[in-house]
């Protein structure tokens, strides 16, 4: 009996080991694809400058499978892949979601496995220096690309484009409309100046009879670093030196920006570092009335707090007028192509990228769901996008936002440390920012980074 039991257990163990064994999803699913014999599908050509003619065969119509690594919005990217698969039924695109934490450690290692790595992968420009070695340039005329996507010119490297922006994102204020109304505020109270901002935030802050905060007017907890990087522009300093090689995170402008945020809590008491340790969770719970977040927060709210009735407003300025720059922006990047994939996989990937860029439907969906301003010129006035929070709020002044360049992650990481040192550890702001600047500069030198601030249209102001 014991022997029989041992044999059964061994068999189960073997089966489970077989189940755990690594497998090549690209190879496996290729076998299940469909032969495509119909080149002329009777479909319209998409796009203006970058065009996509669906009436052709890819990979000669033979079944083929490729992997596409993403770190978020899996459903959205899968639906784009499915739209492409509908045109080319012989192609299977496996959208594989890997969490953001560790994504840029796993991805380069996977790409070092050459054709076994993903053929397509999402890119974040702060990790550009980790990925460029493994990327294939787009096989699309750069003039066509820049005609449709002007910001593509900032991604030219030796006349080639390896990835570019499909949308632009930046920060804006999100407010809870129900709490706004409850405090007796109306649309006319949307603040244009920082003084007005303080006033409404104070009206939205509530304390109990013991003086304990029960509702924050404004909450930046766990988002201090992302908030303050870019606020320096309003206080008179750029983020990087004129040669673009060293950081100015310890500039007077940054010190003023930091001091302003600290004052909001300590002097004006519109929030508290110990109330709602995460700005986003606190907003979801209706405990914080205003938070600052980038465009992605639109998607987060839809997923995590669909019942929150919210509005958005643009970052105020000192006098309500046009500043040197409101804030910074960053691009949401198009997928990269694995240069070591097989020729057949690369052919599919290049074809997919052309489809991705030429299709207005795809671009509209990406901007609407991702909380982005479309990078494609033709879609700036698209009716589907004109009422999205970011386009409505920031769109009219987007030329007054600065792109500091593909800023390496060290800037955010070290500003997080500096922010916590100032906010929670009571460290002197000048010392904390100096420490951050020194560390960032060492890392920037190693990353061979040059800021793009000098490309800003109003840089000389």
């Amino acid at each position: 009996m014991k022997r029989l039991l041992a044999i059964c257990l061994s068999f189960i163990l073997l089966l489970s080991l077989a189940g755990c064994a690594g497998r090549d999803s690209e190879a496996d699913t290729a076998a299940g694809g469909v032969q495509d014999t119909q080149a002329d599908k009777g479909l319209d050509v998409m796009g203006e400058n970058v065009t996509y003619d669906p009436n052709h065969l890819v990979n000669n119509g033979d079944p083929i499978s490729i992997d596409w690594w993403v770190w978020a919005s899996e459903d959205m990217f899968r639906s784009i892949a499915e739209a492409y698969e509908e045109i080319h039924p012989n192609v299977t695109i496996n959208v594989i979601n890997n969490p953001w934490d560790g994504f840029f450690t796993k991805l380069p290692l996977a790409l070092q496995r050459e054709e076994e790595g993903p053929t397509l992968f999402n890119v974040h420009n702060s990790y550009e220096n980790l990925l460029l070695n493994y990327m294939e340039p787009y096989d699309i005329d750069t003039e066509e690309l820049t005609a449709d996507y002007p910001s593509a010119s900032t991604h030219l490297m030796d006349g080639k484009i390896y990835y570019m922006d499909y949308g632009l994102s930046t920060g804006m204020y999100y407010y809870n409309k129900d709490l706004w109304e409850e405090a007796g505020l109306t649309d006319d109270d949307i603040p244009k100046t920082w003084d007005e901002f303080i006033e409404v935030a104070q009206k939205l802050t509530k304390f109990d009879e013991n003086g304990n905060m029960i509702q924050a007017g404004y909450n930046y907890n766990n988002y201090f670093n992302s908030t303050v990087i870019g606020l320096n522009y309003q206080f008179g300093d750029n983020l990087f030196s004129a040669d673009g090689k060293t950081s100015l995170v310890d500039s007077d402008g940054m010190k003023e920006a930091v001091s302003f945020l600290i004052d909001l809590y300590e002097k004006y008491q519109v929030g508290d570092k110990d109330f709602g340790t995460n700005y986003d969770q606190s907003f979801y719970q209706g405990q914080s009335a205003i938070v600052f977040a980038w465009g992605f927060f639109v998607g987060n709210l839809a997923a995590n707090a669909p019942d929150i009735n919210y509005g958005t407003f643009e970052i105020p300025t000192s006098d309500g007028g046009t500043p040197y720059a409101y804030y910074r922006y960053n691009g949401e990047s198009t997928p990269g192509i694995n240069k070591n994939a097989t020729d057949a996989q690369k052919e599919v990937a290049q074809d997919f990228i052309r489809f991705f860029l030429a299709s207005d439907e795809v671009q509209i969906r990406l901007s609407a769901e991702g909380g982005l301003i479309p990078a494609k010129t033709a879609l700036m006035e698209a009716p589907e996008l004109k009422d999205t929070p970011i386009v409505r709020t920031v769109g009219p002044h987007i030329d007054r936002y600065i792109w500091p360049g593909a800023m390496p992650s060290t800037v955010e990481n070290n500003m997080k440390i500096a922010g916590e040192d100032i906010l929670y550890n009571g460290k002197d702001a000048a010392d904390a920012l100096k420490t951050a600047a020194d560390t960032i500069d060492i890392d920037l030198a190693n990353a061979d980074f040059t800021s793009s601030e000098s490309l800003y249209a109003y840089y000389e102001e």
Partner: protein
Amino acid sequence: MFKRRPLQSKSEIWMRNIAMGFLIIYMTIFLIVPVIIVVAGSFHQWNPLNQTYNWIGLDNYIRMFSYPTFWQSMANTVIFCVVVVIFRVLLGLAIAYALNSKLMKHKTLFRTIFYMPTVTPLVAVAYVWKIMYNPQFGLIDNIFGLDINWLYDSRFALIALMVMTIWKDFGYAVILFLSGLLSLPSDCYESASIDGANAWQTFRYITLPLLKPTMLFVVVTSIISYLQAYVPVLVMTTGGPGTSTYLSSYLVYDQAFKQYNFGFASAISLFILVLTAIFTVISFKVTGANEN
């Protein structure tokens, strides 16, 4: 004295050679080669993800000794190790002693309860404690009527990590001390009883000296494992607020896998390796001296 028996048959010799061969291959692949790679990497600006590997001599070491976060992480590690080990030993010994008492009933049940945190996955425990430490809805502030932002206040954040670690790990010490207590010779206790020793005297002059090897084992293995602790930091504080809860191993993780400074991380790792080796040698010497 034990006398070595010569190997008698060819099959025994084969078995020995195969076993040793596997062991040598295993140690070479998983220990010696990685250490050599780390030693070489510490002299380079090294990022295997984008294949950067530039010779920079002693720069990583120079930077390490002038890097304030390095010294802070070392200080935190020392505090963390000392406090957690002391509490682990004291709690482990006290509970094991109580469980070993003749007055105690349901010993198996209590043993299981005390050992449960040890077998629970560390990441899960750390997440639960993170929620318990929340200043608004966390269990700890609510039960004790406190208003402390445990994980964001540098006065309490390291303490919070230590409390969680002690809770998680004391059960291991309980089991070791209990097995030590069960193996103590009963004749010593009978003699003590005849001589009229009270409970404290029996514990102080008989139990404690006889438990010394177990205690040394618990202390040494604890210190070595806490020198490598980084998961609680990763889950609960990510080193913050600021750098106030950086432990040396978390600094290695942060530099390697968040900042991608693998060369710098290698230099720090080597420093920790040397420290651990020195500590292990000292502990072996102490153990050896005691045994002699």
